[in-house]
């Protein structure tokens, strides 16, 4: 405590102290979902740390990328561990981000006054997907190369701006070393900068507004009655830390028993390997686009599919403003249904996409 006193003498931490001492977290049956956001943040921290470590040895050029990853994994002390952690943590991070998103969606935590928290959160979800897509190419192996080719090809299917977007993403007409450079810049500089700002905002909002309570629980309260509170520090914080350690344990287990392989170095002139498909978090979208017929009412199927996904993304951002009933504190069965259908769609199409030829 002496250190804190030393800082307090210089920077006056009384505001912070009162905030921490008074802050409470509501206690109710659904409070388990509160921890998902923190777990996502923990994994993001792991990504930043392991990412910076990998940065010290990785070389972002088509001739050296694969070899540098090979060097990290075979020559650098514990390089295999750092690389495995980074690869697995990426997948877990996106999984947890989706879990956190769905829990908020179902519990309607996005309702007034937390609309901005939701908007920043949705944008963060898209950013995480961007991290996954850009980072996947960096080892420059066969699977990554062709998955990127397919993925950026889909970007080209956006009407009007598709061609431009494809060239912007690929750094040219084809996936080449230029694409690698671009994705590297995105992955280590652009996306982290935007994410840091948005995470700071998101956390600021959460800290200022406290935890949201589900509508059902709120409505059961009699007038003047308050929910029991758990002190934020140390009770909630310790639980949060426990959740983080559980996440890290899962991560370590995955890295130990399912190590990530190097694959074969990408050869742009080799034929596309059979059954190429993106990582699991894009599978649902990918498989949907495959199923859309090539022409619907004269419009190209792929264009229609991409536009549909774009509209879905816009809808998601605007959910708090569209859900009138929730913002009034009333049960909103329609949006619960939408959330359930969305979850069902994503899970089933991911599974189907995985097992499809």
């Amino acid at each position: 405590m002496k250190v804190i006193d030393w800082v307090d003498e210089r920077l006056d931490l009384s505001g912070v102290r009162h905030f921490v001492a008074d802050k409470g977290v509501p206690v109710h049956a659904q409070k388990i979902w509160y921890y998902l956001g923190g777990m996502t943040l923990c994994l993001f921290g792991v990504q930043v740390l392991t990412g910076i470590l990998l940065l010290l040895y990785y070389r972002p050029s088509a001739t050296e990328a694969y070899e540098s990853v090979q060097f990290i994994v075979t020559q650098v002390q514990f390089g295999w561990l750092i690389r495995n952690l980074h690869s697995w943590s990426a997948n877990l991070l996106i999984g947890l981000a989706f879990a956190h998103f769905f829990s908020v969606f179902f519990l309607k935590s996005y309702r007034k006054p937390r609309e901005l928290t939701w908007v920043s959160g949705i944008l963060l979800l898209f950013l995480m997907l961007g991290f996954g897509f850009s980072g996947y190419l960096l080892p420059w192996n066969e699977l990554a190369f062709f998955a990127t080719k397919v993925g950026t090809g889909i970007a080209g299917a956006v009407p009007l701006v598709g061609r431009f977007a494809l060239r912007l993403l690929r750094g040219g007409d084809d996936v080449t070393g230029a694409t690698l450079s671009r994705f590297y810049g995105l992955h280590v500089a652009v996306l982290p900068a935007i994410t840091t700002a948005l995470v700071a905002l998101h956390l600021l909002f959460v800290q200022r507004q406290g935890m949201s309570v589900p509508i059902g629980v709120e409505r059961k309260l009699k007038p003047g009655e308050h929910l029991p509170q758990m002190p934020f520090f140390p009770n909630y914080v310790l639980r949060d830390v426990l959740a983080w350690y559980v996440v890290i344990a899962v991560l370590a287990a995955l890295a130990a028993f399912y190590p990530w392989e190097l694959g074969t170095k990408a050869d742009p002139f080799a034929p596309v390997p059979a059954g190429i498909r993106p990582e699991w978090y894009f599978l649902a979208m990918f498989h949907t686009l495959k199923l859309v017929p090539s022409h619907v009412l004269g419009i190209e199927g792929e264009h229609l599919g991409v536009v549909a996904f774009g509209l879905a993304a816009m809808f998601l951002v605007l959910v708090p403003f569209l859900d009138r009933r929730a913002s009034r504190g009333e049960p909103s069965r329609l949006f619960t249904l939408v959330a359930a259908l969305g979850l069902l769609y994503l899970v089933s199409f991911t599974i189907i996409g995985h097992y499809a030829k």
Partner: protein
Amino acid sequence: MLMSDASSAAQRGSRSSVAAGPVLARLCVLVVLLVSTHPLYAQSPPAANGCVACHSTQADSRLATPAALFTEPDVHRESGFACVDCHGGSASSSDVARAHAPAEGFKGKPAGQTVVATCARCHSDANVMRRYAPKQRVDQATEYAASVHGQQLAKGDLKVATCSSCHNAHGIRRISDAKSPVFPTNVANTCATCHTDEKRMAGYTLPGGGALPTHQLADYQKSVHYAALTKGNDPSAPTCNDCHGNHGAAPPGVGAVTNVCGTCHAVFAQKFAASVHQPIFDKGCVECHGNHAVVKPSDQMLSAAAGGACAACHTAGDASDKGTAAAVAMRTGIERLKSGIDDSGALLRRIKNAGIEVSDEQLALREAGTKLTLARTEIHGFEVGRVEAILADGMKVVEAVARAGQDGVAELRFRRRGLAVSLGAILIFVVALGLKIRQIDRRDRTRRASL
């Protein structure tokens, strides 16, 4: 002179008619001018163009084509030679009879032995050749006389190839020119113009009897030599003249085949020459590898079973046949080393993919590959003991690499165990933290209860 003729004529004319004089004079001038400039009567320009100028206007292609070809890249024309240097005659005369006069040395179109004599006049004279191409040989005519072509020609057979058949007579390119018929990649096709022609080859026989075949080009195009020459960018790969001779072309002959193949494949020839097969095989290397269709050899050839090269003389499954036993022993050893190398290679690739450094082991495995190549060379001595010694060295390398590979697998397991230990530590902490939380909660409850 012409003008004075015209003017005196005009003056004579002027006595009869004063008005017609100047007109007639002008007419005469015109006629003389027209006549004197007509090509048929014009003074021909000196040197080579005389022949070409006339011949190139001929309708008959047999006369026009040589002239046209001579104006294309031609090593003789570029060195300052002209038609008359080979054909004789006079280039400066415009009159056909005078240009082609025997008195001027006109030889016409050389045929048969005359062709050789015409070319040899310069190309067998060192003093002449030294002035134009000092390094060029001057014994081609002598070689030719010793060749099958030369010997047939001496007997009066005009169907055989002479100098111009392969080198052309007009439009002769240097042999380093890729369009020359005797540029290394073109030689086979040049020989084939006659040697694939059934009608032309009818009546000729092989030295050992039997009709002269016409499928040599088709066979050669299946060979590794052809592939190396045309696709492998290896100009040292053999074509017809490398084995049969250039100008002294003839089949190598009994006993000489091994020497011929041995000019490039020296190690194999040495081993074979010391082996038991050397006095037995008439055709040396050709017995197993063929002469023109020399395809890439495979280990399948080393077998007395159907499809193997040994099966021609040795019986499979015959316990008393020492050759069969040797073939079986050598082949089994080679297959064992091959599969050992493949398995070790696969193991190294697998653990490399999993993240273990294996470049040292991959380097060592190359040594085993070298031993395999050396063993395949040693087979040509047909001594099982020597082959097995080399294969044993190779297997030692494979075993060492396999052990190193197992070390790699052990390292992977060690990593996994290390992570499992860390996992244990984390779980202990998680349990302790859980207990702590419960403790704090209980303390808070008792504190609130006592309030």
